[in-house]
C-alpha cells in the first residue's frame, strides 16, 4: 500500500465500502445475467474497483465524469444507488434512465455522471466538452474521462487531448489499462509507450498502480486540485485488471489469457483484500467490522435486486417520449 496522505478513518472506510459496493453490485449483475433474468448483456468492472473509487473519492458531486461500457463501477463510485441501477439494468421504469439506457448507458446527472458510453472512446469529446464549459463559465468543476486501453486506438481521443492541451482545460484522462481490449492484449493493439501519448501533446502524465486505492486517491487528489486551479489537463495511466471476460458471456478465455494470470491478480493483487488487510494492520478497522460491512452490502444488494425484479416496466406510451426535449 502506498503511504497515504493523512485522512480520518471514516474516509478510509468509505473508500473500502465503495469498493465492496462495486464488487457486490457486479456479482449480483453477473448472476442476473447468467440466470437469464437480465436482458441484453453487461461488462463487469470487478477487479478495477480501486481506480473508480480512488478517483471519484477525490471528486466533488458537481465534478463531471464520463464512463464506458464497463461503467457500473464509475457509476457506484460517483454516488449512484443500487435500486435505481438494478432497475436500469433490468429495463425498469424506476431505473436511472427509465429503462431506456440499460447497462451501457447509465447516466446519473445529479451526481455528475454524464453517462456510460457504448462507443469505445466515444465519451472523450463529452468529458473534454464538460471541461470547456467549466472553463468558459468559470465554474471550477473538473471533468474526468474514464476510458480503457482499447480507446487508445481511437482518433477522437487524441483530437480531444490536443484541444484540451491547447486550451488548458480542467480535464483528467484516466486510462484504465486492464491489459485487454475486448479479447486482445494491449501489446497487440497499442504501439509505443502508452505514456508517450500524453507527452506528445505536452500533457502531464502519471502512471499509477490501479490496484492500490490509496495511491490512486492520493494522485487524484493532487491532480484534481491542480486542474481546478487551471493547471490541467492531466493524463493518468492506471494499471489494473478485469477479473471477468470482456462481457459476462465471455467465459472461456484461455485463448487470450491464462487461468494462472487471472489467479495471480485475484489472489495477490485484489484491491479490496489488500486494502482491507491494510485497514486491519493500521487498526483502522477490525476484520469482523469489515466482514459485517460485506454482509450489510450484500443484504442491501439483494433487497435492491428483488425490488428491481418486481418493479414495473416503462409504460408502452413512453417509447416515443424523450426523443426530443418537449419544452423549449
Amino acid at each position, binding site marked *: 500500500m502506498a503511504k497515504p496522505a493523512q485522512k480520518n478513518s471514516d474516509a478510509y472506510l468509505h473508500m473500502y465500502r465503495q469498493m465492496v459496493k462495486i464488487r457486490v453490485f457486479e456479482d449480483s449483475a453477473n448472476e442476473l*445475467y*447468467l*440466470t*437469464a*433474468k437480465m*436482458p*441484453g*448483456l453487461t461488462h463487469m468492472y470487478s477487479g478495477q474497483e480501486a481506480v473508480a473509487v480512488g478517483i471519484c473519492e477525490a471528486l466533488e458531486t458537481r465534478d463531471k465524469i464520463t464512463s464506458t461500457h464497463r461503467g457500473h463501477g464509475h457509476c457506484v463510485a460517483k454516488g449512484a444507488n443500487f435500486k435505481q441501477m438494478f432497475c436500469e439494468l433490468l*429495463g425498469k421504469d424506476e431505473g436511472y434512465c427509465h429503462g431506456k439506457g440499460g447497462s451501457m448507458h447509465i447516466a446519473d446527472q445529479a451526481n455528475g455522471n454524464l453517462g456510460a458510453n457504448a462507443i469505445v472512446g466515444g465519451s472523450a469529446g463529452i468529458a473534454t466538452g464538460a471541461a470547456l464549459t467549466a472553463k468558459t463559465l468559470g465554474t471550477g468543476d473538473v471533468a474526468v474521462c474514464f476510458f480503457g486501453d482499447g480507446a487508445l486506438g481511437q482518433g477522437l481521443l487524441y483530437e480531444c487531448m490536443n484541444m484540451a492541451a491547447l486550451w488548458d482545460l480542467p480535464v483528467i484522462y484516466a486510462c484504465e489499462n486492464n491489459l485487454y481490449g475486448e479479447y486482445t492484449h494491449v501489446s497487440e493493439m497499442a504501439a509505443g509507450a502508452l505514456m508517450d501519448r500524453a507527452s506528445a501533446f505536452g500533457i502531464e502524465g502519471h502512471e499509477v498502480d490501479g490496484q492500490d486505492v490509496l495511491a490512486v486517491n492520493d494522485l487524484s487528489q493532487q491532480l484534481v486540485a491542480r486542474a481546478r486551479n487551471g493547471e490541467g489537463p492531466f493524463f493518468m495511466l492506471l494499471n489494473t485488471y478485469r477479473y471477468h471476460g470482456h462481457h*459476462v*458471456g465471455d*467465459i*472461456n478465455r484461455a485463448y487470450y489469457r491464462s487461468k494462472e494470470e487471472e489467479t495471480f491478480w485475484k489472489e495477490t493483487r485484489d484491491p479490496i483484500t489488500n486494502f482491507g488487510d491494510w485497514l486491519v494492520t493500521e487498526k483502522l478497522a477490525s476484520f469482523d467490522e469489515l466482514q459485517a460491512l460485506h454482509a450489510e452490502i450484500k443484504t442491501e444488494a439483494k433487497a435492491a435486486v428483488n425490488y428491481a425484479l418486481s418493479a*414495473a*416496466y416503462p409504460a*408502452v*406510451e413512453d417509447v416515443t417520449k424523450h426523443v426530443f426535449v418537449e419544452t423549449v
Partner: protein
Amino acid sequence: MPYDVLMPQLGMAQDSAVIVSWLKAPGDAVVADDPLIEVETDKATMEIPAGRDGFLTQIRAAVGVEVPVGDVIAIISESADDFVTMPAAGEAHATPAMLSEPASNTSVSAKTATAAWQPPVQNDTSTASVTVSAKPVRPAKKMGVAERVLASPKARLAVADRGLDLNALVRQGAEQPIHFCDLDQFSTSSGSGLSVLSAQAEGETFAGLLTQQADPIATRRRVLSAFACGALRMAAGWSDRPIMVESSNLGDIREYLKNPDLTGVSAGRATGDVDLFEVDLTLFDLTETRLKEYRPAMGHMIQVSVATDTHGGFSLCLSFCSDVLSVTVAADFLNNFAMRIEDPIRHIL
C-alpha cells in the same frame, strides 16, 4: 442453503445449451471457480464454473440433453449429506421446462422469433396491441392487367361517388389513364354508357294464372325470373352454362335463384349465401309499384326491370353493356322474355 446451478446465458443470441460432460460427480466437493460442467452452444464448447463452494449434491440434466438458459442443472449444498442420486438418463430431462419443445438447431433472429428473454405481461398493454377488425375481407374480383381500366386514384374515387362506371367511360371513348377532369367530359354527356332496350307485353293470361296461386306476388316474381333466365339462355346460347339470377323489388326483397328456368319456381336463396360476382342477370320487379322502369347507371351484369302498366300489360326495360351482350342477342333476349310473359303456359310446361 442449497444453491441452484442454472444453465448460464453464454452468448447474446443463445437460449439453450447442450450438456457435453459433467466434470464433477455427485458428492464431490467443489470450489466456486472450479469447472463443473462442459456445455456446447451453437458456437463453442465451454466449461462452466460451479459458482459456489460446497458439494455437488444433485445433477439435474444428463449428458446430451439440450437445456434452456435459466433452468436448474445441478444443486450445490453445504453438506455432502444432501446427496441425491442422479436420475436415469431417460428421466434426466424430466423437469417441466425441459419437457417443452426442443430448441431448434437453426438460428433465428430475435426479430422473427420469440426471444429467449421476455418481459412479464404488463398490467395494461392495450395501447400497444393491434386491433384486428372482425369484418371479413372480401377478395377483390380478379382482373387481368389488360382488363383493368387505368385511372388516377382521384378519378377512381369520384367515379365511385357518382355511381359511374369506368368501363362505360372507356366505351364512350375516354383515353386511359382517366383523370379527374375526364369525368365531366364523358359522364354528363351520354349517361352511363349502358345500352337500353325496352319492350311491352300483354298480361292478361299471366294475371289469370296467378290468381290461382297462394302467394301471387312472390310467384309472379319467381316466374318472371324463370322466364328471363330461359329467354337469356336461349338468346345467348348458354345451354350448358349455369345462370344466376338476382331478383329484387328495389325494396326489402332480394333473392338469388340458380337456373330458375330449369329448376322450377321454388324460393331462392338469401343474399348472404351468394357471391355477388356470380350474378349474371338482375331482375327488378316493379310490378307492385307505380314505377315504370329502372336503368342502373353502372354494372357489368344484364339488368332488366319489369313493371305493369295501367292496362295490366308489362313494361320491360333491359340495360346492358355491349361488351357483355351484343345488341342482337339483347334484342332476341328481351323479345323472347316478352313472348314468354304473353304465353306463359307454353313455357311453364
